[in-house]
């Protein structure tokens, strides 16, 4: 018998790309050995009667409250009306607003969303925006003065998902958005959260 490995042509035989007759005489014996190997492959179908009962029983057992069970037997679909977005009342200090543009209704966004960031900072010389969407680089996204005195803005197209950000005033002062949800940044300051 030849070495441990099957000859490449015998492997082609096993793959079904050659027939035994295609093999040279010297390889016939090895080819027959290979085909005997395949012949004992167990192709018996396997069934699991009653598995669906066990799966559903397992899912119900894991349910941890009657209300889950109630959902299971009386499915119900309720749509909550989304109230129109309104502005938080202005305060004397820096005011920041985030307005969503081009959002026709409560569609879960998978495509990018246009977002306008606005900061009321009348004493600032320079304002920028830093966040997860621009590697927190304070130089990457400057805001520009708008027509209204003291109001700065920038409009970005952001991918769907959750972002954290803050404004950077005069290159040094990191200011969270008072109108947005805020979380601890781990460094003693707060970041604002934007969910798209």
């Amino acid at each position, binding site marked *: 018998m030849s070495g441990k490995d099957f000859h490449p042509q015998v492997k082609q035989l096993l793959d079904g790309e050659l027939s035994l007759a295609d093999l040279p005489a010297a390889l016939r014996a090895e080819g027959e050995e290979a085909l005997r190997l395949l012949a004992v492959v167990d192709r018996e179908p396997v*069934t*699991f009667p009653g598995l669906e009962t066990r799966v559903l029983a397992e899912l119900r057992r894991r349910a941890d409250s009657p209300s889950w069970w109630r959902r299971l037997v009386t499915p119900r679909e309720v749509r909550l009306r989304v109230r129109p977005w309104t502005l938080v009342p202005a305060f004397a200090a820096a005011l920041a607003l985030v307005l969503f543009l081009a959002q026709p209704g409560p569609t879960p966004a998978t495509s990018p969303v246009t977002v306008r960031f606005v900061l009321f900072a009348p004493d600032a010389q320079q304002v920028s925006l830093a966040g997860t969407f621009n590697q927190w680089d304070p130089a990457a996204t400057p805001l520009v003065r708008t027509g209204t005195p003291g109001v700065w803005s920038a409009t970005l197209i952001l991918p769907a998902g959750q972002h954290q950000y803050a404004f950077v005033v005069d290159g040094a002062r990191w200011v969270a958005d008072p109108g947005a949800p805020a979380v601890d940044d781990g460094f003693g300051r707060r970041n604002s959260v934007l969910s798209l």
Partner: protein
Amino acid sequence: MSGQDGSTDGQVVRAILAGDTERYGELVTRYRDRYARYASRMLGSRDAAEDAVQDAFVRAYDQLAQCRDPDNFVGWFFLILRNRCFAERRKSKEVAPLEAAGAIAAVERAEVPVEAAEQRRALQHALLELTAEQREVFVLKHVEGLSYGEIAERLKTSVPSLKMRMHRAYDRLREQLRDRP
């Protein structure tokens, strides 16, 4: 991919996601046995396979909101089951050890008549000695009867890499079966 009432997988999945969770039973019934044999050959035991398939259905239910292509629920389910089979570390003890300890001559095994059941078990043993990837390509092609192209599509890999895996499997199987008494 539709049931007798004509509803497609996608329709059933979307109905479940809309709140009609009871309909998950339809998907389980539809695909209960689809990969039973694959799981049995991968794990070497019918009981281990049944556990794996049951577990995969439970996981698929939990993660149903993450199924990106509801019309191809079964392809997504297969991947969950596949991960479960690959994670199965214990080799099943239920493939019966070769019983013919004294009855079969050591060397020229192929020339001694052995019961077909014994040979089947020997091959299943040998399959369990392969890596999971090697065993899988062998099972998908030679047990499930898929072509290399079909396997490549399902596993998101290339035909040449599958062939490389398979050819290595052939050699290892040959080695295993020859070494057995």
